[in-house]
């Protein structure tokens, strides 16, 4: 309840900002408040940003669709379409600053620029589909307007809360109708996917496609009336179901019914309890006995989004590999030999054919499990691609993070997706750490188009183990995990982790540090990620991680600070936490109850 209030209060805040009467009526579209020049600048800013973020030819339909919808959303006359189309096609990009300045000077935004984030979010979600590209665009616009990115996270969360409540109120008849459709759909899906099916006890809910008619009925409500509030109505149910894929079951409900190809194990394990409008999937590179015996262990501190999963795959083989790595570094090869090995590998003098015999004993231990896992990771990656393409995760952005062979899984997942159609707008960011894959930009070019946000390649020049195991597996000299990938694309971000990673095993042991270095949010960390790269996302790293963990008292203090910004919000519903800061889900629920 509190969250819904929060959302409504935000809406009413923008309402009161317009100086209109009747504060009770929640949610007035920004388009009704902004003056025409303001709306024009707003749309132009979006157009220019679209052109900058997605200049590719194959993205043109997305750009056009977005901008056309947006012109309607903002209630601008069709006469502006040619200019907007020109902006979205990369013309007139010189005006970005002017448009941003103009927008910020608008009295409504001056008071509370977050309404822009809210408006864009409402627009992006209006048909129950959260495109990764839309999210990247929102991040970019908020950066241009100097709005901290955690605002977006907070908005997403509060919107989600209000949707959840509405869902519980779903009428019985609607539910009955829905279930009937589901049964039919389920049958169809068995045929469609073929690879594997959905089971796992939980009720299988709406898929995106099924929700479409419901959404179509609701879309008018959403667009016609107050956007933000309307999302939490009947349309909201459909929106929600569509967003979250197989209702509630989502990825954890996914289990392979039979062996798929060469894959023996493939399952999603939840890393966090929460639900979010965007999810993160982490992929582990190997397992070793003891502390790191589980797939989830390395990711314990990660908190990129409050809904995170970890992919469990081929544990038998990954454990064998882990054992081999362990033997290699703790005992079998003594320190001296390790140094010699390191020297040999790093100097690069010795080619694969002329390795000294002493080193070849090492090779015996590691090469076989490595080769097996190398092959299997590619298969798993392809399988993952088809799961993501069939939207088991719902229609919302996905971020993929993996190290070592996990990064290889991601690489092959992206490669497979690039070969299919409808791959766009699913993946937001990818992070590959110490990836044993080709580093030649020509292989990365096709996968870049799958990703909407950033492709982070974390490499370590001194990773001799990676250099060694990769020597025979394939002839390529370029390994992404050892050097930057020289791909000319705004998405590509190379990060030298040499100062953090001393050897390949550190990817598992130092994951916490690495995540911070790369700019992924972690549980403890509140401060900024130091390596953040493209300006569009910079604030993201500095943002938000704290909001989840903040203690009640601390939050209250912060609320006071923010109170000036959120005056009307707290006036409207004094009990709800400030929307500017938001709280953890627990807090929200608790306050709602009180």
């Amino acid at each position, binding site marked *: 309840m509190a969250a819904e209030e929060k959302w409504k209060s935000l809406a009413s805040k923008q309402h009161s900002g317009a100086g209109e009467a009747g504060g009770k009526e929640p949610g007035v579209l920004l388009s009704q408040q902004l003056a025409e020049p303001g709306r024009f600048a707003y749309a132009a800013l979006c157009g220019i940003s679209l052109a900058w973020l997605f200049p590719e030819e194959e993205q043109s339909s997305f750009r056009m669709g977005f901008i056309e919808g947006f012109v309607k959303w903002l209630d601008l006359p069709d006469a502006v379409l040619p200019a907007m189309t020109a902006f979205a096609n990369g013309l007139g990009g010189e005006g970005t600053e002017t*448009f941003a300045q103009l927008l910020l000077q608008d009295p409504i935004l001056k008071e509370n620029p977050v309404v822009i984030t809210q408006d864009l979010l409402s627009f992006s979600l209006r048909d129950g589909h959260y495109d990764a590209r839309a999210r990247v665009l929102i991040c970019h616009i908020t950066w241009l307007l100097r709005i901290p990115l955690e605002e977006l996270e907070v908005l997403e969360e509060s919107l989600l809360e209000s949707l959840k409540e509405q869902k519980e109120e779903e009428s019985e008849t609607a539910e009955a109708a829905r279930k009937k459709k589901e049964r039919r759909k389920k049958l169809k899906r068995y045929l469609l996917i073929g690879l594997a099916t959905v089971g796992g006890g939980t009720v299988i809910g709406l898929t995106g496609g099924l929700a479409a008619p419901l959404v179509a009925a609701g879309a008018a409500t959403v667009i016609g009336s107050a956007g933000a509030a309307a999302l939490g109505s009947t349309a909201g149910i459909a929106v929600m179901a569509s967003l979250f894929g197989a209702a509630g079951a989502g990825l954890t409900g996914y289990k392979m019914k039979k062996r798929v190809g060469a894959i023996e194990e493939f399952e999603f394990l939840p890393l966090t309890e929460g639900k979010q409008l965007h999810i993160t999937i982490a992929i582990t590179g190997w397992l070793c006995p003891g502390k790191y015996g589980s797939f989830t262990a390395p990711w314990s501190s990660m908190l990129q989004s409050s809904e995170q999963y970890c992919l469990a795959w081929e544990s038998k083989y990954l454990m064998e590999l882990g054992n081999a790595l362990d033997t290699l570094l703790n005992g079998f090869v003594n320190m001296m030999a390790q140094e010699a090995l390191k020297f040999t590998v790093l100097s690069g003098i010795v080619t694969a054919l002329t390795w000294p015999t002493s080193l070849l004993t090492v090779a015996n231990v590691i090469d076989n499990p490595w080769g097996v896992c190398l092959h299997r990771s590619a298969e798993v990656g392809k399988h993952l691609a088809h799961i993501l393409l069939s939207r088991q995760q719902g229609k919302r952005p996905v971020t993929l993070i993996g190290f070592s062979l996990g990064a290889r899984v991601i690489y092959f997942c992206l490669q497979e997706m690039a070969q299919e159609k409808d791959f766009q707008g699913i993946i937001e960011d990818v992070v590959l750490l110490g990836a044993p894959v080709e580093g030649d930009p020509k292989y990365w070019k096709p996968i870049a188009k799958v990703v909407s946000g950033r492709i982070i390649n974390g490499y370590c020049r001194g990773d001799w183990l990676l250099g060694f195991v990769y020597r025979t597996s394939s002839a390529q000299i370029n390994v992404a995990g050892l050097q930057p990938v020289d791909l000319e694309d705004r998405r590509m971000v190379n990060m030298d982790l040499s100062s953090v990673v001393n050897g390949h095993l550190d990817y598992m042991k130092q994951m916490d540090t690495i995540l911070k270095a790369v700019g992924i949010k972690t549980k403890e960390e509140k401060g900024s990620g130091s390596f953040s790269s493209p300006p569009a996302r910079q604030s993201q790293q500095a943002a938000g991680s704290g909001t989840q963990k903040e203690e009640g008292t601390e939050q209250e203090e912060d609320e006071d600070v923010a109170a000036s910004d959120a005056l009307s919000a707290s006036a409207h519903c004094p009990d709800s936490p400030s929307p500017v800061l938001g709280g953890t889900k627990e807090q929200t629920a608790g306050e709602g109850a009180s």
Partner: protein
Amino acid sequence: MDEDVLTTLKILIIGESGVGKSSLLLRFTDDTFDPELAATIGVDFKVKTISVDGNKAKLAIWDTAGQERFRTLTPSYYRGAQGVILVYDVTRRDTFVKLDNWLNELETYCTRNDIVKMLVGNKIDKENRDVDRNEGLKFARKHSMLFIEASAKTCDGVQCAFEELVEKIIQTPGLWESESQNRGVKLSSKEEGYGGGGACGGYCSML
């Protein structure tokens, strides 16, 4: 896109509200005239390829809104423009007097000082002329602009105005060739240096 297009030029149309900027553009691009044309919102955009002296040039024309409320948006379009068309209404002296303001704004926001300027006195089909042709000519000369009188309604001088402007821009190679190579946002991927160009500064205007 087009193989034989020499370059893409950014042209800007400015002037007071209601002087006929959009009508001039509509006449030029679509050869139509609408006496009831609605006021422009923000900016309008049209593309047209024309051939001047055997050189094909693609014109990306930004037609700005003259209304005061959109005035704040105008500065964003000036950047990178190679040519500007300054329009006034020959039947309304106030639109002529305001030209100084427009020139000031142009000076302030324009990123280059060799931008080619064309002064157009519109609506010469109307009876109640208020600004004499010589006045316009004098003003244009003083500020080293090209000058032409035109009527979007009768089609008089419209084509000529754009052609003259483009010709002058093409005769000033420094104005467009460097631009086409290092612009952040490329107008066309096929832009290659300047092939024609011709003699520099061969200034022949309608004067």
